């Protein structure tokens, strides 16, 4: 008895942990998310014109989950591979318009999509929205800059988001997620042909009554395969061989043309 009492301090943390989990388990347990992407590897082939990846999500509840007054809402955030981007401002010098001031942003996703099932202000309370930085406004604030210049960088950041948006690389849609049943939703992620190869992170958030209930993360990769992949690898890793090969091909085709269309 005395011996087991002496053991108590050592056992205490473990005991508390079990107790705590038991208390939480019987209490209000939040929903969890189950998500699945239609594919985890999107191939760029010779006739690639962009692609689409579909995300399916289900809200998992059990007997202890409390009931919600409002419907579930979901947000899907997709971030493409990171890039360093320079934004330049054309300025009039004399009568020429040339590149003047510039701002470098060192941490910019090449592709960004904020897809939600309803307008953001209906999904999350303002304070939460600010903290999560969902959507293009949030992304704009999030993009780190290399040289801060007392407020001037804000116009460059806005320009970056505007230009990326025009290219279809930044997308925001409050109809991007559809609930098929109150607990099952789908979202189509459309990748334009210009979206670069690399890793695309997908973050799925579940909301109800203005608060965040669950987050799930997954990803897919956009990769060149077959001929396209071999060409790129050769051009990058063995550029001399690639250059000589291209030169040889060009000379061969030039010779072929001179034989086929010989006029003398």
């Amino acid at each position: 008895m005395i011996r087991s009492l002496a053991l108590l301090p050592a056992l205490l943390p473990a005991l508390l942990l079990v107790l705590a989990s038991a208390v939480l388990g019987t209490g209000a347990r939040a929903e969890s998310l189950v998500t699945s992407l239609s594919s985890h590897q999107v191939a760029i082939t010779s006739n690639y014109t962009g692609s689409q990846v579909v995300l399916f999500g289900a809200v998992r509840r059990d007997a202890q989950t409390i009931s919600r007054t409002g419907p579930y809402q979901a947000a899907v955030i997709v971030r493409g591979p990171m890039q360093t981007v320079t934004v330049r401002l054309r300025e009039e010098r004399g009568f020429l318009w040339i590149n003047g001031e510039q701002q470098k942003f060192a941490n910019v996703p090449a592709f960004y999509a904020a897809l939600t099932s309803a307008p953001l202000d209906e999904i999350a309370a303002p304070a939460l929205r600010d903290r999560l930085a969902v959507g293009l406004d949030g992304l704009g604030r999030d993009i780190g800059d290399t040289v801060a210049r007392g407020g001037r960088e804000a116009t460059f950041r806005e320009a970056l988001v505007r230009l990326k948006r025009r290219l279809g690389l930044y997308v925001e849609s409050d109809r991007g997620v559809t609930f098929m049943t109150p607990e099952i939703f789908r979202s189509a992620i459309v990748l334009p042909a210009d979206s670069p190869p690399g890793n695309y992170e997908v973050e799925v958030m579940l909301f109800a009554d203005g608060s965040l209930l669950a987050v799930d993360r997954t990803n897919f990769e956009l990769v060149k395969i077959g001929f396209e992949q071999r060409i790129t690898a050769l051009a990058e890793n063995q550029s001399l061989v690639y250059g000589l090969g291209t030169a040889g091909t060009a000379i061969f085709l030039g010779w072929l043309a001179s034989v086929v269309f010989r006029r003398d």
Partner: protein
Amino acid sequence: MSIYLPVAEMTVSLFTILGLGAAVGFISGLFGIGGGFLMTPLLIFLGIPPAVAVATQTAQIVASSTTSGLAALRRRAIDLKLGGVLVAGGLVGTALGVWLFAAARRAGQLDLLIVVSYVTLFTVVGSLMLRESIREFLQSRKGKPRPRRRAGEHPAYLGLPLRMRFPRSKLYVSVIPLWGIAMFIGFAGAMLGIGGGFILVPALLYMFKVPTNIVVGTSQFQILCTTLAALVLHAVANQAVDLVLALMLIVGGVFGAQFGARASANLRADVFRFLLALLILGVGLRFAVELVVQPDELFSLSITQVGAEAVE
């Protein structure tokens, strides 16, 4: 039908590129020039990154100058000794051009460099050719054609040291001005994705009095060698040569050039020079508009690096 360009990392329409290649090939066949000075700007206007446009166009020039170089060789219309001297100068220029191209690309000023170079080179050359062709036209109306070569008359630059004899071209000139012009053309060619035939041919013809039947073949020989070097150097230094794009340009160009060459038989020489001058001036002015007119969107994006940069 769309086709993905693996190095440019973008999708283009196959028929647009083949069509452009054929159209430019037609013009190049018509005028007996490479056509790079039209194709490279068109590719840039299509949205292909300038680096890829310039580097890839060199492959098309290699193919077209191989075809016409071989034809000239069969007609024995190449002065190989003169060509060799030109190539020696041209290669130095090409290396300098590729080096400046890579440096400007790193500094993020490549687009500006290309636009400014096109504007200066093309407006100057275009205006000079236009003036020459109008003067020629006026004189031919008066009925007295200008003598091409007067005995005993030599500009001073031909008499510089290092004189060399070129029996095939019936020349005895200093190699220094030859190197100078070849170097300039190699330099401009590597930087702008052009062969430079439209500068080299008149330069050899008017400044050095190379016989007309030899000038085109010799210039094609020099262009083949320098663009070949430019192609390999661009592939190594800038990794901007897109094989898929190059194949489409070559195939389109080959067919266009055949029709152009046939059509050229019906074109009078003076009209021909006048049209070519207008074309070159037009390309220069098109780029000048870019510089002078206020753009709709003042901001522009360029991807400086793939992957996030570690900020110190």
